């Protein structure tokens, strides 16, 4: 209820007011939250991407869950490398009742790649946060079991970071030999 009205950048005006209302109610009271509307392959539906600060991350997601976005779909991380803040973490939620999708994302810098865990809000965030930790190297304090999930435990580095190059790790072929 405090703070400025959230800014809504929309490339389409065909959205019924109620749909925007639901998204606006989620970010109401969170300073600096921005909304972008994205079209989809289905002409009837759009989804909204909400960017929030990392301090508001858990509270916004919890508020979204209480507002009806109660189905957890996805959690992703992106390494933007040359941009600051460098890492983006986003969570994809559905409100089945209102047939709406929202992606709530936040950005964190390289020297503090830490995002509070969502496992307290959605237990399903467990595996997805482990994947983001494993491949991008985001730390999720409060996660019950933040271990590598796809790569072996002894793996060094986080391969989906942009400074981890393809082919950097030599692969040893054990079977047979080739005379060159």
């Amino acid at each position, binding site marked *: 209820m405090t703070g400025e009205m959230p800014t809504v950048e929309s490339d389409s005006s065909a959205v019924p007011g109620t749909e925007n209302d639901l998204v606006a109610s989620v970010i109401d009271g969170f300073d600096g939250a921005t909304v972008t509307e*994205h079209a*989809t392959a*289905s002409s009837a539906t759009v989804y909204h991407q909400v960017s929030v600060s990392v301090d508001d991350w858990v509270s916004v997601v919890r508020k979204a869950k209480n507002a009806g976005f109660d189905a*957890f779909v996805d959690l992703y991380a992106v390494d933007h490398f040359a941009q600051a803040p460098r890492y983006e973490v986003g969570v994809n939620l559905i409100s*089945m009742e209102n047939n709406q999708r929202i992606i709530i994302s936040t950005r964190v810098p390289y020297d503090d790649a830490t995002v509070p865990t969502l496992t307290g809000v959605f237990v*399903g965030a*467990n595996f*997805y946060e482990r994947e983001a930790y494993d491949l991008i190297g985001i730390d999720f304090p409060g996660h019950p079991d933040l271990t590598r999930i*796809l790569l072996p435990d002894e793996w060094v580095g986080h*391969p989906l970071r942009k400074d981890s190059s393809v082919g950097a790790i030599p692969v040893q072929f054990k079977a047979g030999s080739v005379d060159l």
Partner: protein
Amino acid sequence: MTDTTDTESAPVEELESDQDPSAPEMSVADQRRATHDMWVSGTEDTYPFAAATDEGAQEMLPQADDPGASMQAGIAVDDDYTSEVLVDPDERQIINMGPQHPSTHGVLRLHLELEGETVRRVKPIIGYLHTGMEKTAETLTYAQGGTNVTRMDYLAPFHNELAYSLTVEQLLGLEVPARASAIRVLMTELNRVASHLLWAATQGMDIGALSMMIYGWREREICLDFFEKTTGLRMNHNYIRPGGVAADLPDGWQDDVTNLIAVVSAGIGEYEELLNENPIFLDRTMGVGVITPQECKEYGVTGPMARASGVDWDLRKAAPYCGIDQYDFDVPLGRHGDVHDRYTVRMEEMRQSLHIAGQIVETIPSGDYRAEDRKVTPPPRKRIDESMEALIHHFKLFTEGINVPEGTAYQSVEGPRGELGCLIVSKGGTRPWRMHWRAPSFAAVQALPVMMTDSLLADVVASLASADPVLGDVDR
């Protein structure tokens, strides 16, 4: 599978009082069978399927009407099993199932903590098939990307290609012709049938119906033959591409699809004849591996698994893509969220997909099978000999690739296993900056402990098979 006191204490008179007095007396098992039905999405109508399951003599145990959400490992669901012999907690043993176990559908590994024969804790361990496909995607052009993504969920290659192509088209702002969209719907729906047939085969095999395996494979072969005739390959097709599809449907495809629909429909009837009244199959599936609607939403479980729990959510209805909303089809839903409901829902989904395919045979529009945008799709071979511009376009497209503007797009399709989503972050250029996949099997594997905890060891295999995880999709 549940505490037996419920069955014994269930007053038979009370159940009979609901019945028409003139009707023949129904046993408690038949009562249970009669309520084990499906209904049509958006209506209160029960699905006619119920008639096929209300006969037989299996004693089924009552299921709690409202199990409620148990956020931790299914403590309140009705497949909970209490060991009759008390086992000292110190004597619990952990056994390792997989990654080479034949019924783990690939290379899934499960840590099972057992108390006697009761599973008390489960931990799925994945990553044995991780090949870094999301990283590989960053090194491939958008034109090459299809060959990569089609190998993720190798049982639903068309769905992967479709999600990828739709996302790229979203970034390009490209419209595809109506015929291309219809071909895409036809191929993805037939792919759903092929995938569910393989699921039926392996589910039957895993719980002892070995002939089911042969039957499922037999009908799936007809689907794969049609895919091979259309795309040249039995799997990993790279047929649906940004801008449309790679080639038009082959001559005589209407006859092929009509024949496929007839043969597979007859096959589904055979499976139901084999399994619907099979006492062993019913005992192994009813009330086993229950997951509640709330748990589905918490864990990100979508698709047939969520619909078997009664979650009325199908992206083909909620966010229709490729004009799939023009076709008439129902969304079957279950009530109990057990293995048996997943079986009935998938069987009915196959029928609905065949129904969609039948409508496409009749209504497919004529026109181009891909967008005539030379920055995205290559010119016809003949034009290259005639036109310098066509030669340049062809050369640029296959050396440099498709130039995609900066932006972020997320697009999901209803795959055979649930919501299959593709997120592409583009910074301009011909290669994606980041490609993230929302894999339905990943969420399903995460929810396995909910289904398996406090059930019998033998039911682990039934629950796992009913989740239908594809490890290529889980690990990517």
